[in-house]
């Protein structure tokens, strides 16, 4: 049922394809398209050009958007996960034999399971034992550190946010008011051996949430002339890359 083609409608068809006609005009064009093959062909010719416009606008959103979307989708997928289908039941003639077999099988499985559980329990006990030993070592170490830094004979060197403490051959940095380092950065200690011209890299650390850090430096305090701390990239540096937060001479 083709109506006579009206060339004046072609421009309206183009605006309709672009999605830029108001509702009342769009209705009129739709009615015309239903009866005019020429205008339908024009619409079909122009539509790919219209949809192609979207490709010219491609942009990347923030990376967190995908995480938000996928968290919702994966949670929903998990909530609607279909459990595995049950196997069809066995014909009754074989029921008793099957039941006996099942009982034997279950007994075996139970035994295997008990053996497995026993081994798991043994592994857990060994782990707990190992953890306890580690914890005891760590506590002993902390007690020794505490005793050192409280020692009356300790030499204390005030630095920004705390002090460097020398006790016999031990060397500690104790900080109590240090801001968290910037993202991707850590604090790094540096030591200068007596007679040396360059600082040597030492431990990296970050303060706890209260701004406290206690670091035991792995050097002989008697052979050390100075201690410094600077902010470095995560993982530490071989040479300081920023102005030290403090440098203190202890020699």
């Amino acid at each position: 049922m083709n109506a006579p083609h009206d060339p004046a409608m072609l421009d309206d068809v183009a605006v309709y394809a672009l999605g830029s006609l108001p509702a009342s005009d769009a209705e009129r064009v739709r009615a015309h398209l239903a009866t005019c093959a020429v205008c339908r062909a024009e619409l079909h010719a122009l539509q790919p050009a219209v949809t192609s416009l979207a490709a010219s606008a491609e942009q990347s959103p923030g990376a967190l958007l995908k995480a938000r979307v996928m968290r919702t989708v994966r949670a929903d997928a998990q909530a609607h996960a279909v459990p595995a289908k049950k196997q069809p039941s066995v014909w009754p003639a074989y029921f008793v034999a099957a039941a006996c077999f099942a009982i034997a099988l279950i007994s075996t499985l139970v035994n295997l399971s008990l053996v497995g559980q026993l081994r798991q329990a043994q592994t857990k006990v060994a782990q707990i034992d190992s953890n306890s030993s580690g914890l005891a070592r760590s506590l002993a170490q902390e007690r020794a550190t505490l005793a050192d830094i409280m020692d009356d004979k300790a030499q204390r060197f005030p630095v920004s946010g705390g002090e460097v403490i020398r006790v016999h051959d031990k060397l500690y940095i104790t900080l109590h008011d240090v801001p968290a380092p910037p993202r991707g950065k850590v604090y790094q200690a540096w030591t200068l051996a007596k007679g040396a011209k360059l600082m040597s890299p030492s431990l990296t650390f970050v303060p706890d949430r209260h701004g406290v850090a206690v670091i035991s430096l792995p050097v002989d305090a008697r052979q050390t002339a100075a201690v410094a701390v600077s902010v470095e990239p995560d993982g530490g540096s071989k040479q300081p890359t920023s102005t030290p937060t403090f440098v203190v001479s202890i020699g």
Partner: protein
Amino acid sequence: MNQDAELLMARVRSRDADAFEALYDEYHRLVYGVALRMLGDASAAEDITQAVFLKVWSAPDLFRGGNFGAWIVRVARNRSLDTLRSRASHQELELPESLPEADAMEDEAFARLDGERVREALGRLPAEQRQPIELGFFGGITHEEIARRTGIPLGTIKTRIRTGLRKLRTSLDGVVTA
């Protein structure tokens, strides 16, 4: 790419989150780009992108075949139009209708487009044709509003839109012809 999308959508219908993620990776830039261009607001564009893709996940049967990219662009544009409609500054304006549905052949043509080629083709159009086309598609306004804003007679705007679209189609020929 389109065949892949159809297969992925079949898996999405059976709640396959990995298939959904593959679709997201392929098409999220298109959806976000259209929404951002129309709304001019990154946060609102992200909301639209999230809503569009979660709709794909929760109601995959809304996609009834054809080219997935062309379909999701229509969904993104229509959603963005809804947001424009809800904004106070647009309440006094008559907003355009949604994009008309395309048939599978036109959709298929869309599958071979890439952004760079379209930007080049658009750039070759005279500004007097490119401007009303972009305003119409991304601006979410009617041709009457375009005429009012530009001070150009309505009939001229319509003719420029048609001429520009035909040129764009010709520029993209070989890409957009099946």
